[in-house]
């Protein structure tokens, strides 16, 4: 395209690669900011008595603004290719589920978004991952600053051996936040539906909690610095069904404030909680990506149907 890249160019490019999805707002970045601010305010209101307006849900499922766009993403671990030409638009305030058999590159895709793969010496990334109108693999992007905008929850709960308060405040602390930390901690714990269970023991160790509570603590930790995207790598696979269903409920609420991308092995879970589903199959290829209902009821590809119905994988 145009050799001198300007933000407008990038937006136009995006419109093209979106496959003709109309952009409602040219000034995307300002819209983002407004949305983020609104999100902050809304977050305070989250309480059992406060009912979320129905239309909010509709806005979420119908959102047309992309949060993250990948184009021709190839990832290699040494000589082994983990992702093969993945192009995908992830929409704001969506819950996007990534499903597929083991070793198909779902987790790699997730960790490519917030550049956690940089930690792996042998990992090499080709192609673009656009977030906030910028390719995150550009030379002038600081991966540390990027990760402060993208929270992540891991497969096994991994709270720090610190107090519950310090766990949640960790992100704020490292980002040098000098406002009211306790208020932010409370807000994050409420958003993670953990506040009522731990409000009297904020100074006890995060490791004293049960597995499900620990995972919600990790979610609270991830959202405390108010990121824009929350990545979840099989967040319920190490938990019992009751704890898992609590997390699932939580994910639905989280999508009102954040863009959620979740890797899961559990087909029912993907069907229950996600708005869009991406199916990766062996070789790191994105085989199909569409509305969740479409994927689970009437997939285009036979292989996807076989995988979902359990005939393969």
């Amino acid at each position, binding site marked *: 395209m145009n050799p001198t890249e300007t933000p407008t160019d990038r937006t136009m490019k995006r419109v093209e690669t979106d496959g003709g999805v109309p952009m409602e707002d040219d000034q995307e970045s300002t819209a983002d900011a407004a949305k983020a601010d609104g999100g902050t305010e809304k977050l305070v209101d989250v309480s059992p008595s406060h009912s979320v307006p129905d239309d909010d849900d509709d806005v979420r499922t119908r959102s047309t603004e992309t949060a993250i766009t990948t184009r021709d993403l190839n990832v290699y671990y040494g000589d082994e290719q983990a992702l093969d030409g993945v192009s995908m638009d992830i929409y704001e305030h969506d819950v996007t589920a990534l499903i597929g058999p083991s070793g198909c590159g779902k987790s790699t895709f997730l960790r490519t978004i917030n550049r956690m793969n940089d930690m792996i*010496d*042998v990992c090499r990334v080709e192609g673009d991952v656009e977030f906030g109108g910028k390719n995150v693999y550009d030379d002038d992007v600081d991966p540390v600053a990027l*990760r402060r905008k993208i*929270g992540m929850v891991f497969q096994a709960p*991994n709270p720090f051996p610190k107090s519950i308060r310090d766990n949640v405040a*960790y*992100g704020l602390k*490292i980002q040098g936040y000098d406002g009211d930390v306790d208020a932010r901690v409370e807000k994050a714990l409420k958003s993670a539906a953990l506040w009522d269970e731990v409000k009297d023991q904020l100074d006890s*160790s995060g490791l004293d909690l049960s597995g499900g509570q620990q995972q919600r603590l*990790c979610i609270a930790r991830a959202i405390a610095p108010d990121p824009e995207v929350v990545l979840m790598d099989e967040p319920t696979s190490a938990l019992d069904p009751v704890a898992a269903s609590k997390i699932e409920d939580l994910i639905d609420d989280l999508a009102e404030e954040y863009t959620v991308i979740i890797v899961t092995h559990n087909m029912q879970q993907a069907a229950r909680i996600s708005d869009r589903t991406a199916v990766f199959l062996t070789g790191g290829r994105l085989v199909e990506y569409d509305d969740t209902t479409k994927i689970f009821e009437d997939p285009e590809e036979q292989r996807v149907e076989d995988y979902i119905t359990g005939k393969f994988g």
Partner: protein
Amino acid sequence: MASETQTSTTWFGSTEEVGRLRGRVFKWTCLGATVLTLFLMLVFLLYVANDALRPLSADPSWLATMGVTVVLPVVLLAGYYYRRDRSAGEVAYTALGLPIFVALVSGGLWLLFRHIVSPQEWFVLAASILVAGGLVTAHSRVRHDAAVERLVVTVVVPLLAVVGVPTVLPSLRDLLSLSPVLPNALFSLVIAFTLPIAAVVGWRVRAVRDADRDGAIAAGITVAGGLAGVVVGPVFGVHPTSWLVFASPIVGALVLYVEHVVRNDEGVSGLAFPIVVAAGIFVGLTAAQTLGFAGPDTWLDMQFLTSSTSTTPADAGIYPALVGSVLIMIVIVLSAFPVGIGAAVYLEEYARSQGRLGTVIELIQVNISNLAGVPSIVYGVLGLAIFINLIGMGRGTAVVAGFTVGLLILPIVIISTQEAIRAVPDSRRQASYAMGATKWQTVRNVVLPESLAGIFTGTILALGRAIGETAPLLMIGVSASVRVSPDSFLSRTGAMPRQILSWSTQITTEFRYGVLAAGVVTLLVVLLTMNAAAIVLRNRTQRTQ
């Protein structure tokens, strides 16, 4: 199916024996090896302890008195803890061991205050550090965002305060020492030693109990314990300053531990154990003295610990060598530990494992493991060659001894620190990085706090190895027998193992048996207490993780 029905009449194993003979022999052989090791250790320890303490030289009535007042209550109480309240037993051993350990550390500090840094000098030094710390904090408040400037200030201000610029600008410390009014020794220590300890204790109690009053009480008890020497000290014949140096840390540590036990409300009765032991010893000694029972004629007594070696065995002591060993330990702690821990952090957290650099790192890693096995005499030659012949530092000084033995334990420090760092689960690092933490923030906030206990354990064990080393000390010319305590790190010094070696070559029999055994027991007490502290620390962290 068919075969199962056939054999169902005979139960498995009742017709043919499963061979277990070799397994049994193997198991008993292993047990034999274990028992042999323990037996040899025990025999050695008893033998040395018997030579050093000579309990059988005491009046049988004295032994009986002590048996009734000390041994019997201790055995009864231990039995009670064992049968009724295991957690109280744990509390009991910690409550007894903690003051002993802190007393040893305080003993080291006492030697320092007596020979190296006088209380007034310490007061001036502490004041300079305090001023420097205040300036650094104030600067970071005022200029919050100037990261580079803050780094410079953090490095330069303390340097100016403590060292100054030689021949150009006197340091704050020098200026303060010129001050015409300086507090006397006791008052200096109250301000610069007891008060900081009390502040730490009070702050800690205040943090865990979330009450200002409790913190103030804890700090108050610590200060009172230190100052009690002014009144009580003369009764026991202890100088108030000495009392202060020993009592402040002991009382402070006990306050913290008692608060911890009472707060958790588990095994509180264990706190009675050290009281029973101390009271038993006190009552027993008093009773024996009033009744006129003669105690054992031990080699290891206060006279041995406080006097220098002599030509007559009865007058010989280990004091100057003890001072030397403490100085050497301090040099090791200040030199080998930072270097070793720094190297380990780099190798574990920063060094790349791939590419050409990775190969070099791997080579270094293998060599560090090899260095841990190099004979100590070789390190002695190395120290002689580098520190004395090449750099020209004085023969047999505490600095050279500390550097040489520090080199010896450097690989051990590195390896044990690496293991402690490796024990931090990688998922925690991942969590930190995913939160947008930099490498430094992750190391500072996640890796180091979690591995700190493991690092301490490894380094304490390494230090234990270091103070017993003799061969390197021979090579670098540490004095065989010292009668004058070193008065600085740069003056010639003795060391406990070197002193023990020289006693072993004396012609007089009492030296080779009695005095030598007393020296060995002194060394062992220091070493075993350090190891016990390391093990307690390790067990505690294993339980919390």
